[in-house]
């Protein structure tokens, strides 16, 4: 399914949207989506795909907007030992790393 997300990201870029891609690169424990899962996000707030069961999409979308503006990729850590994860609440108790980059 990540291919459809990439096709969607390309279509958004063609339509003049600024797009970021987020990819799950590593997981530990019972994380809901496996490594390789992707989320495409636009500066205007459109989303396609997923990197979790919905627990961290909001935080990832926020990081994606930063990356769209800065152009600098980010490697995000989410997990129960992470204060930020407490905030966004990874209810499954898993841990994961998400790579966020701009489509340029």
């Amino acid at each position, binding site marked *: *399914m*990540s*291919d459809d997300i*990439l*096709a969607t*990201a*390309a279509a958004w*870029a063609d339509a003049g949207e600024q797009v970021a*891609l987020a*990819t799950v*690169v*590593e997981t530990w424990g019972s994380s809901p989506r496996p*490594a*390789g899962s992707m989320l495409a996000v636009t500066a205007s707030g459109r989303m396609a795909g997923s990197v979790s069961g919905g627990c961290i999409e909001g935080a990832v979308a926020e990081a994606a907007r930063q990356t769209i503006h800065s152009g600098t*990729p980010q*490697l995000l850590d989410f997990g129960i030992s992470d204060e930020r994860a407490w905030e966004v609440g990874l209810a499954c108790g898993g841990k994961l790393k998400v*790579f966020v*980059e*701009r*489509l*340029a």
Partner: protein
Amino acid sequence: MRRATLDSLLAARAARRPVVLAIRLGDGAQHLWPEEALPGALAEAARTALDLDRPQTLAFDGEAWFLQPFTPPLRLIVVGAVHVAQALAPLAAMLGYAVTVVDPRRAFATEERFAGVALNHDWPDEALAALSPDARTAVVTLTHDPKLDDPALDAALRSPAFYIGALGSTRTHAKRVARLKELGHDEAAIARIAAPVGLDIGAVTAPEIALSIMAEIVQRRRGPRRRAP
């Protein structure tokens, strides 16, 4: 990701060419393998990622890398453009399978009954020879007619298809087994056929039967992960 890399990825997908996207996580540098070369250990990990169809992470030269395989879509070959096939085709497509429905009976395999689905009107043995099922292909026969199902099953058993299923009762299947033995298939080979097809969820309607078939195909591919309590 550079737009050129994304376009190459999408082109590889359209051409059913497997590729691996290698990302250096420190700075986001990317290579699309094998179109772009990777140094030894990374190329080896890329090959593993493709073989297992699973991403790999590794440290190379003091840097963390993520290798994401993009394999061609799984395929489902459905023999018999029957009512169950009409439910099975869209469900399989939603699960990411590229579906082909094979039926030489043109009254069944019509565009009206299968909007947007690839249809093949050849006799099943010729159709399967042309479609050449590989280890990323599932084959399901639904016609109930030995003249159509048998040549398809014969061809499927001679292929590395990861799933072969045949609609029909236990009694129908016993007769089918006898015929397939006459065609030279032994017990072990014939045991590859899931029959009666699909997980036993008590399916009654065509969409429910389609769901049970796709559930069994997913189970065959991924394997049950939870142990029984």
